[in-house]
């Protein structure tokens, strides 16, 4: 089945309401630019929303993949999304990129239909920002000889 694409929604659908406050010159351009920048992540997040691989038992989060797979997406019920991509198969040299999107940003980028927006703003709105964490093995750690035997191993 074809993956849903973010480009199917056009930015003009964002601004149907007549009382939207047009501060900036063209907010539609900004939303389109961000959609292009995060196109891969947003496609994966849409897929996790619509066709999750698994659903959490207690808090109803939706998963795509599992934490050890190359692609893992986790969306919790308020809509926050964590997108994890692992490049490389060797754990010593792999590169892991974790991207976090707060729900308010996802609602702007993915839900041009204003009826889907959440009813209330988050209480920590000023601190809720998207984050990108990158991990990569920069130096190989060649084990220096141990001067004490490892407890538990029988040599």
């Amino acid at each position, binding site marked *: 089945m074809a993956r849903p694409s973010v480009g199917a929604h056009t930015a003009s659908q964002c601004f149907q309401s007549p009382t939207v406050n047009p501060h900036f010159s063209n907010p539609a351009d900004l939303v389109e630019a961000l959609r292009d920048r995060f196109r891969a992540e947003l496609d994966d997040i849409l897929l996790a929303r619509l066709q999750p691989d698994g659903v959490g038992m207690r808090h109803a989060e939706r998963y795509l993949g599992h934490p050890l797979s190359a692609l893992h997406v986790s969306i919790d019920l308020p809509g926050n999304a964590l997108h994890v991509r692992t490049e490389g198969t060797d754990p010593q040299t792999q590169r892991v990129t974790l991207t976090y999107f707060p729900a308010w940003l996802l609602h702007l980028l993915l839900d041009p239909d204003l009826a889907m927006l959440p*009813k209330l703003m988050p209480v920590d709105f000023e601190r809720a920002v998207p984050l990108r964490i990158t991990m990569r093995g920069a130096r190989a750690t060649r084990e220096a000889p141990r001067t004490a035997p490892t407890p538990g191993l029988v040599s």
Partner: protein
Amino acid sequence: MSGLATLVPPPMSWVARPSEYELLMRDADVPPPRFIDHIAVSLASEDIELTSWRAPALHVYAAPGVALAVDCPLARDELEDMRALYTDTVWNLGALPDLVGDRLALVRGDESPACSEQALELHLERRQDAWELPLQGSRPRPTPRGDAAIGGFATAHDAWAGCPRGLDLPMPDGNELMLLPPEAAGLLASAPLPLDALQAAVQGWHAERMPLTLRIKVDPKSADDRYAHCWSYLDADGRPTTTPPEEGQRGPWFRLTVVRTASVQVGIETGLVLKAPAAIENVVTFYDHVVPFDNVPSHIDLDHAEQQGRSRSDVLQPLQSTLQRLTAIAASAAAAVHDDPRLLADGLLTVAGFVPHPIAEVATSAYDLYTLYAYATTGRDPLGRTMTRTEAMLTFGGLLLPVSGAALRSVARGVLPRVLRPGGTAATRLLALVDDAALCSESTAGALMFAYGFGLLTPPPAAPKP
């Protein structure tokens, strides 16, 4: 050695916890719903219920040699603009933003109240042994505490028996070693706790009488920091041992050995005091060995110093001198201001707002009025930053205009459209601003004062028909 020696664990790991909810308040007449019902209930229902969604958490663990980087994928201007867009659309849907950041959410209409936290709790942790990293995707666990038996804390009574004791605490950015000489241990073992004596001991700044905190500190994001450490007690002959010393034993009671790269910091936590406590060498002997990254062993013996043939111990310095701390604070402030010079103006205006002098009050009120005028005409604050309606509301509220809600709304809906050009952006913003202000306002006079002040209303009220 058998084939087990060739196993190499992955040097990085992460553990995520999704947002978790908690039911805070519900209608007493309605029984608490089961979880599946609760999801439907909390999202689209008219029951009185308050659900709080805790922010999701992400723990990132790394062994030495792994580079970590954290940044925001949006530029600051883009983030400001997206925030403004979001507050506008949420307000247009009829929901009130949380102006004071309280956990209780205000609602308008018949929507079910649910508040959520969306700022990711990010924990970066560096462990020196790759075998100690939690399994990726497992449950998040707190940083493990030190081995209680080696520290002598086999029971709570032993901990405070009055003999010298040490405790090694792993931290997300290194290790913390807490050492108690006999006098400090005796004070802590007394009941009730003699706070005055403890305070006098710390203020005396003599190492043999106060609790000491040694710190090995790495940069959790750096790939070049690596160390191995070993701490132990000393017996009566000065040899390292794992047995805690007896009462009455003299001389240094502890030893700390650290083999590290040059970028790792080791020292005493002194706060803002300039120098280390007196007679530190009578309490702990310290051996420091700086080696290249690849030569740092994974474990070192208790008698590592004797193995290396070290005869002279090193001096323990304060971890970070007062000058370094103040320089770091000044540098971060300077970097923030260099990044956005308007922060300096913000800071000065905030300080001026607290000055009780009438000139300062008039000046800040005039600046607030000008801010509202700038927002109404351009959508930005006087310094050029995009302003959200929340900020405009707060500025308006800060002017403390006593305005009646109903009166202001009638003024806004009935009078302003006839004065301003309908459909224009300034009119839209002003209408929205006045309507929003009506939610927090009290009397009629202020409404008229606001309208007159902006030159929007000129008497008589008999306005031409649209």
